[in-house]
């Protein structure tokens, strides 16, 4: 009956997406994202949905409503969705713009209509707030971890990139290279963009394993690449290290048995919850930093952290151990739930 409930839920969403029921105080949040398909997106959007529900239930004085829209990768669609949304006048808009320049006129229009605009990931000067990730720093941490865990021997790594030209992907890439540069035994033997596409990632991983019989590790700018890479290596009976980015729960779960060495705890769920928390705080009159940096620690196992520290990994880098990371990733409310603002 999953299909039926899914249908009904979706229909309900379509029909009553923006209810205008009168309540004393309302907070309507719209999140316009560039996609809905990648595992990170899925976690992100469901974290957002869950948080909306939780906040609405937790606070009697405010009616919290919200919905997400997916532009399915099309800038054009995103602009239309933004225009329609501005017309409907929510309180807060999170926009993960595919191209920030195209949105400047819309930011002005939204602010005219009294809507708080929060630019997601790529900061905008004109926006009320920007929600950022610190991609270069995170990438550097991944690279540093690679150095520290490679064991000093010659270590060959292949890096799977985002879509060419994508700012997030390029910042992460830059960071990773910066981190790797800290030691000289790690050699980047191949780099290829997989366009955030898991299937493409699979072919690339397959070819790498053929082409570089002595490959030691695969690093990626998203955990989406890790799933097929791990499957391919496992099927091929190859022992490889993986360095992920995103904090997807299934990848975190693969850290304890060893194949995934390090990950960056963005976690879509956490980010979704953090959005709602941020919107609620703003609604209650708080003013966060204009550029709000999402707290994204590095994830390692405890042993590996110790090994890394012994190999000169900087002590000031914040590290979560796997259990803790899994906990906050699965339960976004631990960090960003209603209790965090009460």
């Amino acid at each position: 009956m999953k299909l039926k409930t899914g249908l009904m839920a979706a229909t309900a969403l379509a029909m009553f997406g923006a209810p205008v029921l009168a309540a004393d105080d309302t907070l309507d949040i719209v999140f316009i994202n560039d996609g809905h398909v990648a595992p990170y997106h899925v976690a992100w959007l469901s974290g957002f949905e869950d948080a909306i529900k939780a906040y609405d239930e937790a606070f009697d004085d405010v009616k919290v409503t919200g919905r997400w829209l997916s532009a399915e990768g099309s800038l054009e669609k995103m602009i239309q969705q933004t225009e329609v949304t501005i017309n409907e006048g929510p309180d807060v808009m999170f926009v993960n713009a595919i191209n920030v320049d195209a949105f400047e006129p819309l930011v002005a229009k939204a602010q005219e209509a009294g809507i708080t605009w929060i630019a997601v990931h790529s900061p905008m000067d004109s926006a009320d707030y920007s929600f950022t990730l610190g991609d270069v720093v995170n990438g550097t941490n991944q690279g540093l971890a690679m150095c520290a865990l490679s064991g000093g021997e010659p270590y060959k790594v292949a890096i799977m990139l985002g879509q060419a030209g994508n700012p997030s992907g390029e910042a992460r890439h830059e960071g990773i290279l910066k981190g790797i540069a800290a030691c000289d035994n790690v050699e980047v033997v191949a780099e290829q963009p997989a366009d955030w596409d898991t299937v493409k990632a699979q072919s690339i991983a397959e070819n790498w394993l053929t082409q570089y019989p002595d490959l030691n590790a695969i690093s990626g700018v998203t955990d989406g690449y890790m799933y097929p890479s791990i499957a391919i290596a496992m099927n091929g009976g190859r022992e490889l290290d993986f360095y992920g980015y995103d904090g997807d729960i299934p990848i975190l779960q693969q850290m304890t048995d060893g194949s995934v060495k390090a990950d960056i705890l963005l976690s879509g769920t956490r980010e979704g919850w953090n959005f709602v928390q941020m919107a609620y705080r703003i609604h209650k009159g708080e003013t966060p930093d204009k550029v709000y940096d999402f707290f994204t620690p590095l994830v390692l196992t405890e042993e590996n952290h110790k090994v890394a520290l012994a190999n000169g990994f900087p002590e000031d880098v914040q590290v979560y151990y796997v259990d803790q990371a899994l906990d906050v990733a699965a339960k976004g409310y631990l960090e960003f739930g209603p209790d965090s603002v009460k």
Partner: protein
Amino acid sequence: MPDLSRLMREKNIIFVTLALCLVFYMISPRFLSLDNMSAISRQIVPIGLIALGQFFVVLSGNIDLSMGMGSVLFAIVLGVFFGMTGGVALGIVAVIVCSLALGFFNGMLVAKLKLPAFIVTLSMLFCAQGLSGLIIPRGQQIFLMGGFFRFVGAEKFMGLYWSFLFLVALFALAWVVYNHTRWGAAVIAVGNSEENARLAGVNVDRVKIGVFMFSALCSGFAGIMLSTRMGFVQPGLDGNGLLLDGIAAIIIGGTLILGGRGTIGGAFWGLLFIGIINNALNLLNVEDVWHQVFKGAVILAALGANWILWQSRQVEAH
């Protein structure tokens, strides 16, 4: 003289494929390594299944656009059942049942209501795409771990992947069915002239329903193979890419898109051709942006080459 033109077509693609191999080998000797050959053999399995199913549909004068998204849907059906039961058997049964049902539905609409196959299967493409996201809770990915997936996806028999052996076995079976059973002759007849086939006593409706059920079943198999290769399933996989590669394979292999003419051998070589191009572009580190250019140009070149060959044959005939 046994069907010279057919032979020419098949040989044509064989030569082109071998020449391509040589070129790639000269650029990167690793291309012809055993490892890479077996990697190609595994990569082509889902496309091959799509191509094989599509072959009979196209032969009968129809087209099945729902095969690519269908295979994504069926991979997810398998995943959903695996998630619920933790086992594979029920999931595979479900995939087979669902795919046959989809094929039957397509076939009925085409055969009985006389709707164009293009329209019916285009709408099924959209429906499959939608359902693939709706039957999986919140569109999440499902991990498929365990003996079956490892076995099909990674185990070898005499140096060849089981999945590739399955594909080859299916092609062989299809070859026998196509060349040595009444059904094969009936499909050709329907593709040539529905009216004439009907007059000769061929049950045209049953043939049409049959080819659509077979193509849907193939997309079911392709879905299973996709899932074993990836180790996980998720909606939003690029089914249309698979579909278009599959169609390209059989057309390059000499199947007439209007139906009525084609060979299984040709389809297989066309498949290798597509598989080799896909693999080589990655392996030779061709810059990503050039992949599509190269692929489009190669298909155009293959079409042009076929045309020149055809022209020269026309001249000979005079």
